[in-house]
C-alpha cells in the first residue's frame, strides 16, 4: 500500500456522475480494503436507481447507506436520495433530513465535512464532474483535517464547475484524470 493510513474514500459527483463513476468503481477489485462513500446529486424521489446499476457493474458489494450502520471495508455506500449522509465519529454512518446544503440533499459538503471530522488524516476526498459548487467546502475540510484531496481534471470533466470550485477552495488538491484516479484508488486499497 502506498498510503497505509488511509481508512476511507469519499467521492462527490453531480452532472455526468454516472459515466465518471462507471469508469472508476467497476475497476476496484473484490479484495478492496477501504469503504467507499459516494454522494451523487439525484432528484428527491425515493427509488434510487444508482444502487442497482452499480451493483450490476461492480466487483465490490454496493448498497444504499443505512442509518447507524457500521462502515465496512470493501463496500461502496451510496447516499439515499433526499437524505444527507454523514460519518459519525466512531466510524458508523448516519442519515439526516436537515435542510438541503447548496440546494442539495444529499450534499457532498455534508458527507466530506463529517468524514473529515471522523477520519482526519486517514481520508481521501475526491470531487468529480458537476455543474454546481457543492463539495468545495467539504474538500477544504478534508484538507484542513490532513486528508488527501483529489479533483477530476476540469478539462476532461463532463461538467467543470464543480472541479473548478473545488480547486479554487483547495489549490493544493491533486488534479487527476479519471483513469489516474482509478489506478490511484486501486493501489490505495489493495495490499
Amino acid at each position, binding site marked *: 500500500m502506498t498510503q497505509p493510513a488511509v481508512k476511507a474514500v469519499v467521492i462527490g459527483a453531480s452532472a455526468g456522475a454516472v459515466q465518471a463513476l462507471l469508469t472508476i468503481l467497476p475497476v476496484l477489485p473484490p479484495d478492496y480494503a477501504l469503504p467507499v462513500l459516494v454522494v451523487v446529486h439525484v432528484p428527491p424521489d*425515493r427509488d434510487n436507481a444508482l444502487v442497482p446499476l452499480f451493483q450490476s457493474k461492480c466487483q465490490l458489494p454496493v448498497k444504499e447507506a443505512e*442509518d447507524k450502520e457500521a462502515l465496512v471495508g470493501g463496500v461502496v455506500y451510496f447516499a439515499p436520495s433526499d437524505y444527507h449522509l*454523514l460519518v459519525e465519529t466512531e466510524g458508523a454512518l448516519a442519515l439526516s*433530513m436537515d435542510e438541503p446544503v447548496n440546494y442539495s440533499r444529499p450534499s457532498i459538503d455534508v458527507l466530506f465535512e463529517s468524514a473529515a471530522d471522523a477520519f482526519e488524516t486517514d481520508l481521501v476526498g475526491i470531487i468529480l464532474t458537476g455543474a454546481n459548487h457543492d463539495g468545495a467546502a467539504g474538500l477544504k475540510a478534508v484538507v484542513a483535517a490532513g486528508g488527501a484531496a483529489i479533483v477530476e481534471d476540469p478539462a476532461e470533466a463532463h461538467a467543470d464547475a464543480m472541479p473548478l470550485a473545488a480547486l479554487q477552495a483547495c489549490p493544493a488538491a491533486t488534479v487527476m484524470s479519471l483513469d489516474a484516479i482509478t489506478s490511484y484508488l486501486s493501489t490505495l486499497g489493495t495490499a
Partner: protein
Amino acid sequence: MPDSLLNLEIKLLLEALFQRYHYDFRSYAQASIKRRLVQARDQLGFSSISALQERVLHDPAMLPRLLGYLTVQVSEMFRDPSYFRALREKVLPHLRTYPSLRIWIAGCSTGEEVYSLAILFREEGLYQRTLFYATDINPDALRAAEAGVYALDRISKFTENHQKSGGKSSLSDYYTADYGRAVFDKSLRERVVFSDHSLVTDSVFAEMHLISCRNVMIYFDRPLQDRAIGLFRESLTRKGFLGLGSKESLRFSDHSGAFAEFVPLEKIYQRREP
C-alpha cells in the same frame, strides 16, 4: 487540536442545556448535532460554542433560538405519499374495527403530518372517533403546529402529495388563503392535543392504536433509538401500528421481536400480541 476542542465545547454545551433546562441532546447522533451547533454559532454571531454556552446559560431568551437550530425540521404535508396511501389502504381497515382511536404523532414539529393525518382520517370517516396526540420538545414548533398556518408557496407541493396519497377530497377544502398564507381549518384540530413530550426523558402517557414517528429517530444514537422504540412498544395497544421514516427501521433494535413488519416498504410495523 482545534477540532477536538470543538468537540469538547459541544459536549459541555449539551451538558449545560441538560443541567440548566432539562433539554437532553446528549445522546443525539454527533455528526448532525455538530453541524447544527456550528451553524447556530455562526448565524447567531458567536465566536465560539463556549460563548454561545455562556449566553444560553445566563439568558433564557437565547434558549428558544438555539432550540430552533437543534430541533426544527421542515416537513411537508403528506410527505412520502405512498406512506399515507399505505395507512389509508392497509392500516385504516384495521383501525376501523375500534369504537374509539388514539393516534400519536411523536415529534410533530410544525404540524404538517398532524394535519395530513387529520385530513386522511376525515376522508375515511374516522376523524370523530379519534383523538390525536401531537408531541414535540420545541414549544415554538408546537405553537406553529397548533396555528396550522403555512406559506402559500408550499401548498402546491402539499396538494400534489395529497393527490398521490389517494386523497378523496381537495386539499383546498381545508384551508383559506390569506396574504400569502394558507390557514388550515380549525375543525381539523378540534380533536388534536398538542403537548410537550420528550422521547429522551419522558414516559408512556396513553395507550395508542397508531404511532407515527418519522425522521425523528435518525437524529438519535443507537441506545436512544432503542429507548424510544421501547416507549412506543409500551404505548401501543395489542396489534397497534408504528410508522417510521422511509430510511428508519426496527431491524437493529432490541425490541424488533415485539413487532411484525406490516407494510415493509413503508416502514409500517404492527405490535405482536404479547
